[in-house]
């Protein structure tokens, strides 16, 4: 990227909550139902219908605010944001303007390029979503109001990010937090976690922010990165050619990898916010905040640190295991039953996650439960089976649901640790590979791997590889 300019990014994230019902009415908010089947006078915006706030939305807002180091406002109010659009039946969106429920938060991020950094969160407020416009062919559009009135939290960051990578790091962390809290399912494609990016550039050292463009329609982390990088290049080009950046909303087209201006929205927004007379103030007492605080789960950042410091896991392992709460939960059940955290980590990151990915299964539905996996690790630890046989046992458990001990017993997989029996196999292997054995004796040490491999093969994986290794060495010196 051109080093003449500093990139400035601020992000607005819309987090759709996992409540059962909408924010101001009792309609279900299930995704993918028949259009308009989940509507009532409130979310249709019929005259005279009165909104009543869903308590769970306030609860989720407090949770999210605490997890992002925000101050929770003792008193907050709802406001009407006025504009006309066919997906907004009332002609205004109920949102928060002055006095949002959460303010002055922050998250610490870390990127390879720029290291550790604190990103400010200006505010997180509660609001309702709009409906969905389906653009049919011809001269009409169709409106589905099932999504209208769905509860959202909007988290607005400070313009603290200086690269697409920092923006992604912030977003991933926020995504991780809301999914850990369970307030959001985190599905970017279905629009449960939506991001708009405000991007501007300025010459290094300039204090004032450059004119920004707002990027919309970003529904994957990859697209967000692409869109920001494209936008920075575009703005540099505009400035280098002596032009100036226009404040506008731009839609990113992921297929073409370009963004285009959303014409028709260039008229400055004039939302005429005012307090919604239909909704009374939300007062959150300290006891409420403290109760929610005491019920927060261990958050990813704290978990990561604990895995590193208390369990002694490498950064990489801790990162993978903490990435999603269900993975961390699986790991924790396992490590509670088997003390070797690194062995547990290797198996979860290896066999478990790989098999789940191959078979497209969620970890919560993993056929090999952490309890069953602990049974395998136990047998590795006490030398009953080798790591290689353990993988066979793992697959067998996956298929049958039996315990490790049952499978080892039934299939006679117990490792041979009788040195006499292994020595007999070693002798057989040497007899069959005289030439290589002479070379090994002559000092071609890497051939030892070949011999151990042959012993394992002949014993169908049951020989203890360490003992095989020692016995082969003994034969060399004989």
């Amino acid at each position, binding site marked *: 990227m051109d080093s003449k300019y500093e990139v400035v990014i601020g992000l607005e994230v819309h987090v759709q909550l996992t*409540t*059962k*019902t909408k924010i101001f*009415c*009792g*309609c*279900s908010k299930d995704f993918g139902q*028949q*259009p*308009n*089947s*989940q*509507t*009532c*006078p409130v979310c*249709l915006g019929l005259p005279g219908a009165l909104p*009543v*706030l*869903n*308590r*769970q939305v*306030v609860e989720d807002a407090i949770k999210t605010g605490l997890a992002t180091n925000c101050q929770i406002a003792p*008193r907050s*109010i709802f406001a009407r944001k*006025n504009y*006309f*659009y*066919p997906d907004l039946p009332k002609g205004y969106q109920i949102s928060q303007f002055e*006095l949002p429920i959460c303010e002055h938060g922050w998250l610490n991020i870390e990127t390879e390029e720029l290291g550790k950094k604190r990103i400010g969160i200006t505010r997180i407020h509660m609001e309702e979503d709009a409906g969905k*416009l*389906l*653009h*049919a062919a*011809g*001269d*009409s*559009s*169709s*409106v*589905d*109001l099932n999504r209208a009135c769905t509860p959202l939290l909007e988290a607005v960051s400070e313009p603290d990010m200086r690269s697409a990578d920092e923006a992604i790091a912030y977003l991933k962390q926020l995504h991780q937090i809301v999914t850990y809290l369970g307030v959001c399912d985190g599905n970017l494609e279905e629009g449960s976690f939506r991001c708009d990016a405000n991007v501007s550039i300025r010459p290094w050292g300039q204090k004032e922010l450059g004119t920004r463009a707002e990027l919309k329609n970003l529904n994957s982390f990859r697209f967000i990165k692409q869109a920001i990088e494209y936008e920075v290049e575009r703005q540099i080009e505009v400035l280098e050619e002596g032009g100036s950046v226009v404040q506008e909303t731009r*839609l990113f087209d992921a297929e073409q990898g370009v963004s285009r201006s*959303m014409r*028709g929205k260039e008229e400055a927004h*004039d939302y*005429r916010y005012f*307090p919604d*007379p239909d*909704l*009374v*103030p*939300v*007062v959150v007492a300290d006891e409420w905040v403290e109760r929610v605080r005491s019920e927060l789960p261990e958050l990813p950042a704290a978990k990561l640190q604990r895995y590193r410091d208390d369990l002694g896991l490498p950064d990489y392992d801790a990162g993978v295991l903490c990435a999603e709460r269900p993975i961390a939960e699986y790991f924790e059940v396992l490590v509670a039953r088997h003390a070797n955290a690194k062995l547990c980590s290797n198996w979860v990151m290896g066999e478990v996650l790989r098999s789940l990915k191959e078979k497209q299964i969620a970890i919560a539905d993993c056929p090999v439960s952490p309890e069953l996996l602990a049974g395998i690790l136990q047998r590795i630890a006490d030398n009953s089976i080798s790591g290689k046989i353990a993988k066979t046992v793992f697959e067998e458990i996956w298929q049958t649901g039996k315990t490790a001990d049952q499978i080892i017993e039934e299939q006679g997989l117990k490792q041979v640790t009788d040195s006499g029996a292994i020595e007999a196999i070693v002798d057989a292997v040497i007899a069959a590979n005289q030439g290589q054995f002479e070379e090994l004796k002559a000092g071609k040490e890497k051939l030892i791997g070949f011999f151990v491999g042959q012993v394992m093969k002949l014993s169908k994986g049951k020989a203890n590889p360490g003992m095989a290794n020692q016995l082969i060495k003994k034969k060399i010196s004989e």
Partner: protein
Amino acid sequence: MKISREEVEHVARLARLALQPAELEALTEQMDAILGYVEKLNELDTEGIIPTAHAVPMENAFREDLVKPSIGIERAQQNAPSKDGSCFKVPKVIE
């Protein structure tokens, strides 16, 4: 004047009102009078008073997160001038 003709035009445009020049004239005068009347409030000393967000001294009117039956597509569409299956049909919106 508390409000200009341009401001009234702007507000009318935001409200999607098509006003004739004579109406604009009359409305500007009326809105000016209303603002003049409301201005009387500025005579009050409101130092240290929390801005009133709601006329009724009440807070925390909540409902629990429990699903209630929706009214059904047929009733939802009852007043719709135009339909497309179970959707409302509106003039094409171009983004």
